[in-house]
Each structure stands twice: as C-alpha cells, then as structure tokens.
C-alpha cells in the first residue's frame, strides 16, 4: 500500500522530492522549502492524509521542519522534511489550506524563531508576554 503512495508522490513531484522508506510504516520525503506546501497540500487534499503535527529541529544549517502526515487507512506515516536556513529562518505557512496547523506554526515560531509567511495570526502561543524578543528556547545554543 505504501508503494502506491510513494509512486503517486514521485509521479506528481518528480525530481523535486527525495523519498526514503525507513520501514513499511514510515516514509520520509525530503523537499525544498519552496515546494513543501504544495507537497503537503497534495497529501492532505488529494490523497486524504491527516495532518498529525509538525516538528522543528535546530540543526547547524537551519531549522529543519518535519510535517508528519498520517494515512490512517494504510497504517503509514509520511513525514515531509524541509529546511529553513539560518540566520533568518522563514517558510510559507500551510494554515491557509490546513487550519489545524495554526497552533503548531505559532509554537514553532515561539520556540525556534521560524517566520511563517502568510500565517493569519502569528502571535505568541506558549511563551509569556515578558519573554525577551529574539530568544528561542528550543535552539541548541540555549541551555536546558
């Protein structure tokens, strides 16, 4: 079953995507940040995936953003991975076609400092109002 989904993604996005099959239940799709909203929209609207959540990971090159899409009928998770390069990480918001992503984009904006272009309300979600600007707790330079 996961074969079919891989083929569909590959057919639609051709050389724009790199697909890794970690196991029959877990697929990782690497894609440039300018194409990632299209891939997610395709998975959500055309293939009927459920948006489970996005994770941000601080790496040396930039903030890696992973969108975890669940295919509940196929026992499969497709993770779309993209990179928002430093020093000013930014990426197009997916909230316009996926309202369920509103909070997580605000959270990643709070904690990792990624600017989601086109987000309707990129206000603070978790951090308190007196938290200093430009300090992002989940970045590696901050100590735990």
């Amino acid at each position, binding site marked *: 079953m996961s074969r079919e989904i891989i083929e569909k993604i590959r057919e639609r996005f051709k050389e724009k995507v790199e697909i890794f099959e970690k196991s029959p239940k877990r697929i990782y799709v690497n894609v440039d940040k300018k194409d990632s909203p299209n891939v997610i929209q395709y998975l959500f609207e055309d293939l009927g995936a459920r948006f489970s959540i996005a994770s941000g990971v601080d790496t040396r090159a930039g903030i890696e953003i992973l969108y975890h899409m669940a295919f509940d009928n196929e*026992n499969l998770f497709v993770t779309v991975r993209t990179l928002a390069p430093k020093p000013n990480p930014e990426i197009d918001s997916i909230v316009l076609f996926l309202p369920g992503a509103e909070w997580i984009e605000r959270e990643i904006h709070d904690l990792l400092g990624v600017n989601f272009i086109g987000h309707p309300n990129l206000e603070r979600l978790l951090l*308190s109002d007196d938290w200093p600007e430009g300090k992002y707790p989940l970045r590696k330079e901050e100590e735990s």
Partner: protein
Amino acid sequence: MSERCIIPIGPYHPLLEEPEFFKFYVEGEKVVDAELRIGYNHRGIEKLGESKTYDQLPFLVERICGICSTSHPIANVQAAEDISGIEIPERAKYIRTIVGELERIESHLLWVGLAGHFIGYNTVFMWAWRYREPVLDMFEIITGNRNHYAMMKVGGVRRDIKDEDIPGLEKALSEVDSFTKMLTDAVLDDPIIQARTKGVGVLRKKDAIEMCVVGPTARPSGLKIDVRKDHPYAAYDRINFDVITREEGDVFAKAVVRLLEILESVKIIRQCLKKMPAGPIEVEVREIGKGEGIGLHEAPRGEVFHYIRSNGSNYPERVKIRAPSFMNVPSFKKTVIGESIADAALITAAVDPCYCCTERMAAIDVGTGKEIMDGQKLIKLSQEKTEQLRK
C-alpha cells in the same frame, strides 16, 4: 442589534482545575467570537528531554499529565523502539495494552463526572468518581501507584502483572461494566441531559477534518480514526473491539462515545487477561542507534504523538511531543460561536481539554512550609495502604 461585550473566563481554572483564559465576545446571550490564551503552564519539557537518557525519558514524560500519565510513556518508548526497530516480548505487549485501557476507563469516568458537574448534575459527578476509585485501586495493586505508574521502558515493561492480582482486577472490571451500562442508559433517557447537550456545540465533519482533531473529539463527528486500529501497536491487533463513532458531533454524541468506549476498554482488558502468554516482560536494549522514530498511542483524549531524533548517543537530539488536546482545543472556535454563553463552558469542556499536556508542564509542588512527615514515613504509609488493598 445588541451591543457587543467581552466576557473573560479564566485564567484560574474556569473549567477543569487548570489555567486557561477564554475571551468570549457576546451580543446579548450569543457568543459571536472567541479567543483563547494559553501558556500559563509551559515548563519546557521538550527542552528538558534533550538532557535525559532514554531510560530517564519515560519518567519525565510521565509527569506531563497526571490523568493520562501512561499515554506519554507508551508513545515515547515506542518512538525510541521505532528508531532501531526493537521488538518487545509478547507478554509486555499485553501488559502495555492493559495499563493503557485501564487508564482510558479512569480518564473517561473522570470526564463523565466533570461533565455532570458542569451542567449542575452533581449526582453524576459523585457516581462517576465513586466508580473510578476501584480502578485507581487496581492501578495501585498492579503498578504500585494510583498515578504515574512507571510501567514503561524501552524494550518492554518494568513490572509484571501477578496472577494473584487478576481476580481483583476482574471484580473491579465487572463493577465498572455494570455501572457504565446503568449510567449510559440513564444518560440516554434523561430529558435534562438531552436538553442541555443535544444539538449543542456541534463540530461538523468537514471542520473536524480541517482542524485535524483526534480521538473522542473526532469520532463523535463521524471520523472513524483510532490509532489502536489504524496504526496497531502493543497487543491491539490481537484483540476484538469496536471503534465507537457517532454522526451528530454535539456534546451529547461526545458523551455517548466516551461512555461506550469505557465498555470497549473493559472488553479489551478481559480479552488481554485471557490471552496473555507467560514469558519475559522485557528485552535487553544495549543502545539506541542513530536515526529518528515516531511513537503513537491512542490516549483517552486521542492520538499522542512522539518524535525522537537520536544521534547515537545516550541522549536524544530532539524530543517532539504532541498531546491530543493540542489539536482538539482549537476546535472550540468552530463549536462555540453562535451558541449561548451559558453553554460555552460545557462546549469547551466537551473536548476534555488537558492543558498540562498541551503545554507540557510538570506536576505542581504545593509547599506548606511545615514538615509533618518525612519521605520515608510517607513511603511506608503508602506501602501499608497498598497491602490493605490487597486483602
């Protein structure tokens, strides 16, 4: 046209005993817009997770929440196991299932009680919490604790379920079973409960899909999603049970789904107790390799999602935790607008919100300044109580 007013609710536990701040814009009695501010609980557990070893992590994530305290450890150890494809022994799979389902019973009964309380029906509150108590006692007998069971570890579980404890567990299950059946009948027939909840706070199927809600917030709106069936783990693929769905999407449907799920949980645990094979409860895990993994668990409130990235060392590079309420709570905008302000508390409570999880905080420490008993005495007292329960 009436004038628009703002009614602030919170941040001191307006619904459940947790801080959140709702701002309802009302015209007359009608809610026309709503905003929510959270963050009063944020403790930075994801960051803290990066400084804990894989052995310590389940203890940390267990303390995210006291109600669904085994959901996060189950998802967490499964994420670590997903990294290097670790298979756990059969018996451990069944024990994970039993603990997970007992927790669902306990958590759903808690919600049923609170929902009764919100509509001013305190008899339901007293009943539900009275029948929740034997379930917590069973937890104490099986795991040693009423909450924070510390049962999960990478590669299996920490404690075995002893044969001599099974009859007590079965007795508690039949009590819960008959009470839930009685309560379900009572709820379905009660004209007051129907009047307060039917057609109130409807979450349409289309909105449920767009807001990506999960668990008992999605299923009453006609979405048949359940991690236990869709992404089977532990022993769920060896067990017969139904995924409860409704079409209406209102508060009534949410209550019915939760009540019927308690009965399914009882069914699951009974099958587990029958089928559970003898054998080891853990495999030895020497190291977690380099890579990344996803762990899922159907918590009482819906899908818990954990993502771990490992750099091959003993400490994870990144731990991402997503509790179900993080997806469920934002749906209040779709359900509460257009409703009467008197129903707003009940509607927002109908998703069974859990802000501890949403913001990933640790337990609150209330210091009295007076030391009445030291730690040793407390442990002794607690052990004596467990012994009494066994009799």
